[in-house]
């Protein structure tokens, strides 16, 4: 599965399970948040990625 900020690129290159990320230079983080908050944010994205992996898809799917 693909964690990626610019999801149209992910669609173009053919990923089947896509989870949107935060920003190009910090897809799984946000330096504006404090450390704990940032880690919670990251965990949310990773959990969504795992959920995507555990979900059957029959074509390219973005897990918003």
């Amino acid at each position: 599965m693909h964690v990626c900020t610019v999801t149209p690129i992910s669609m173009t290159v053919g990923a089947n399970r896509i989870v949107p990320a935060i920003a190009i230079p910090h897809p799984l983080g946000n330096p504006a948040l404090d450390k704990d908050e940032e880690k919670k944010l990251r965990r949310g994205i990773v959990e969504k990625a795992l959920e995507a992996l555990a979900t059957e898809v029959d074509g390219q799917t973005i897990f918003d």
Partner: protein
Amino acid sequence: MAKLKVVHYINQFFAQIGGEEKADYPAELRVGEVVGPGMALTQQFGDDAEIIATIICGDSYFNENLEKAKADILAWVKEQAPDVFVAGPAFNAGRYGVACGTIADAVQEELGIPAVTGMYIENPGADMFKTKVYIVSTKNSAAGMRDAVKKLAPLAVKVGRGDKIGASSEEGYIPNGVRVNFFEKERGSLRAVKMLIKKLNDKPFETEFPMPDFDRVDPNPAVKDLAHAKIALVTSGGIVPKGNPDHIESSSASHYGEYDIAGVMDLTEETYETAHGGYDPVYANEDSDRVLPVDVLRDLEKEGKIGELHHLFYTTTGNGTAVASSKAFAEEFSKKLKDDGVDAVILTST
């Protein structure tokens, strides 16, 4: 100018010998004969060129007796000593296309005689030989013969004379990957605006930056039991151990890295960084978990939400890296991941 001498290669079908039941027809040389599509080519050549001999070969025969067929045909072509060799056009006939590409390439390589062929873009022969011989782009059936011959004949004459060959869009051949610098008549901004206006009006326009062809794969089945699954991390965000020990390039990477994170609970400023030169590296250098979420996956591992985090991760910089390189990297490390019993991969991109 003297007429160029052409040897023309066709299959049993276009020679009107027969269809599939005659596909094992052995290679045959007919000196002084113009056969089948050779008539249309002759008409199109006018005073520029003439077919001095036609070689006919069954599609199955050629592909099943490759070495013998190739040797026989090369010997005949050598004996006829043409200025140019023309094969096909093969349209969407797969074996015929492969035969045309194979023999045209061999004539060029082994005899030093220029060759051209023609086929439909999706003919497997097109992908195999488009970088080796000029392949005129044709329709997918013989109904496109007139159109094909209109492009094939002039290109054969040019190639035979050793004239300069223009861009694929001008000459009508399938792009062969060769880039040539040239000056456009209109400047970039003007061309861009013209393209945009066409696009807004739903009119056809031709991009100057075509996207590569990306393949599509069927989705893998869902992971059934995450709590016992081995999850691996892969990134195109260039995360590497501090100091970039394998010197992964900041752009147009020529290789990928494989790093062991056994016992690593958190990526820190002191231990990891990014080699990527295509985004502001400050945030990833401060905390590489922002790109490669090792810390969170360790927590989930501890909590039993996943079985385990694979002890190796794979990384490269996706910045300007060729699709062909990326594909080669992934083919290699996907095998390793499978061999290591990894159930699923999270790929992160910047």
